[in-house]
């Protein structure tokens, strides 16, 4: 089996982008029983549209039902799981034994174990596999050698995080947010209190004039991908259901090309082009997490200013008229006639041109694209397809 590239999506548009830019499967949150409550979660109708779109492309949709439920949250679980089954969902991702057992008992849904259960060893993997779970999403706290040895001991499919935000604690074992903000981290309300700045004190006195933080750099595992493929990992997971369209397209496309290149050539001689590509989407510093061993200071974030929103993504192609060479696009960031623009195609290719003609919806020439989501017509000297992205060079 080819390794799966699994991407996140917070809405239907992002889901389609993820699949078009190279993901083999996408995980999404429904409107019930899912973490990431602030992600724009999917209705059952959306989920049906998602699975239909994905299955036409022979790709898969997984739905997260990964909260740690309280007594009051159990009602409606069976009905919801059955509704997911009728929407042709390929698997659910869960942590609660109740949700897992109800899925196994009342549906034919495949069940994947969420990282919220913090599976870090082969015994825990055996436990859940024996329980009827086909795939285990490992905790992030393992290095690549530990992952490889673990895989050699199990028949369960193993999924590993390769990119995105890192929970600083063992996932699921943290209640900082519950305590500090009353928002339940394990029921979708995490306030990311671990990313705040603190003063570290001893006997009431500060031990440093610098601020302490538990914040981590994001995970980025480009250089570990060949090892993980050869280790027998079944699915490589990108995190970030709340990330932007451009982020998802760029990250998915980069890993897609890397995986394909490795599968074709058996090696990656130079990771730099992939890294440069990823940096077009990154707005947080990144590192390899636990994959090379216990993270040290170089994996920590002590400077909040490291988060810089990217202004590269300036538009999304809706259609293209080959006769007139006019593309209809939706504006996403400020740009002007005269800019050098890169077209980022869903197949990962990039082409560059200089913008010399742009008109608004009324057909009137405009020099500047300044309104978010404004529909514009621009001249592009080569064919572009829907969902191709425009980047400022």
């Amino acid at each position: 089996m080819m390794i799966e590239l699994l991407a996140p999506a917070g809405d239907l548009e992002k889901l389609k982008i993820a699949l078009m830019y190279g993901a083999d499967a996408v995980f999404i949150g429904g409107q019930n029983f899912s973490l990431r409550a602030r992600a724009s979660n999917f209705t059952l109708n959306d989920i049906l549209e998602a699975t239909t779109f994905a299955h036409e492309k022979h790709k898969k949709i997984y739905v997260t039902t990964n909260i740690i439920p309280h007594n009051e949250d159990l009602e409606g679980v069976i009905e919801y799981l059955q509704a997911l089954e009728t929407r042709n969902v390929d698997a659910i991702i869960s942590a609660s034994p109740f949700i897992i057992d109800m899925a196994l008992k009342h549906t034919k849904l495949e069940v994947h174990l969420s990282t919220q259960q913090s599976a870090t060893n082969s015994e825990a993997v055996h436990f859940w596999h024996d329980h009827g779970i086909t795939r285990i999403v490992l905790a992030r706290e393992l290095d690549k050698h530990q992952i490889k040895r673990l895989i050699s001991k199990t028949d369960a499919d193993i999924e590993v995080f390769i990119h995105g935000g890192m929970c600083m604690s063992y996932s699921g074992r943290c209640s900082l947010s519950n305590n500090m903000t009353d928002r339940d981290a394990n029921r979708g309300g995490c306030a990311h209190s671990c990313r705040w700045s603190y003063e570290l004190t001893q006997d009431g006195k500060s031990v440093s004039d610098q601020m302490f933080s538990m914040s981590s750099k994001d995970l980025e595992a480009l250089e570990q991908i060949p090892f993980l493929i050869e280790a027998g990992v079944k699915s490589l997971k990108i995190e970030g259901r709340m990330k932007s369209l451009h982020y998802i397209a760029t990250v998915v496309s980069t890993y897609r090309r890397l995986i394909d290149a490795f599968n074709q050539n058996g090696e990656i001689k130079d990771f730099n082009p992939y890294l440069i590509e990823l940096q077009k989407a990154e707005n947080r510093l990144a590192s390899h997490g636990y994959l090379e061993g216990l993270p040290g200071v170089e994996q920590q974030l002590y400077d909040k200013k490291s988060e810089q929103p990217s202004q590269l993504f300036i538009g999304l192609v809706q259609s293209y008229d080959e006769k007139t060479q006019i593309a209809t696009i939706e504006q996403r960031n400020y740009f002007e006639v005269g800019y050098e623009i890169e077209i980022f195609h869903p197949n990962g290719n990039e082409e560059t041109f200089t913008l010399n003609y742009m008109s608004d919806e009324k057909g009137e020439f405009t020099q500047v694209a300044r309104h978010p989501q404004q529909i514009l017509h621009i001249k592009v000297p080569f064919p572009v397809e829907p969902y191709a992205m425009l980047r400022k060079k």
Partner: protein
Amino acid sequence: MKLLSTFYKVEDIEKLSVYADGFLIGNDDFGTRLTKSYSTKEIQEVLKITKRLNKSLYLVCNQIFNDDQLVNFKSWIEKLPILEFSGIVVADLGAYRLLDHMGLSELIVYNPETLMTNAYDFNFLAHFNIQGVFVAKEITLEDVIYIGDKKKYKMFMIGHGHLNMFYSKRQLIDNFMDFTESENVYHNRQDLKIVEENRKEDPYPILEDQAGTHVFRSQVLSSINHLSALKGFVDYLVIDSLFKDDDYALSVLKMYKAEKEDLEQIQLIKNKYQEVWDEGFFYKKTIYKHKG
């Protein structure tokens, strides 16, 4: 309802035994957030003492393990007179499965800290013949009682102490000391706190031990006012004296044993240890979904 307590000094066990029904002990190769890491020899000595005093002794092995650590854990368990312990507290289902295969299921007490938040999940190991499970700390008193009413094995609960609210495998203080280019003289110290700019009244105890870094609630959970409600459901109530001392454990145990809120004594304790008591999540529902 039996009272279990942590402790700092072996010589204090006898006086604590007047009020405690049993004790928790661990070694930092396998346990975490311990008052003290006891050597194998010390653990065996304490086992003899608790046997003589006719008290329970629970072995705390609540780290989350990788495969290599599980191998070491198995060897260590095999070296101990394990059947003489009252139970083994684990936080990891891998550790549970290992012990189960060693024929020790009846000793297992599962404590995954945050995960046991409903009656079904609390009981999901019932057909594996384990001894009991710790109920989550972040649920209401009503939920605790509801789960207790439906329990299929013994219910354990942290009844008093600074509740842990964060467990990272990373050595976060060591990393910070690297960042500030200072020597880390703070590893395993129990006098550190972190203070958030907007919550200066709530300094949170922080502990870096061999297993990682842990952050605790600022206030001390007290369930002294709810013992009559809890005792019908909770089998073992834990008094956690981490960050305090054995005098603290003694004072608190005495009050819990008497099942009586002694306001004067409570004030003395609060003043001496400069601490605030509250009722944790007993009456505080967390927000399921954030709006906005």
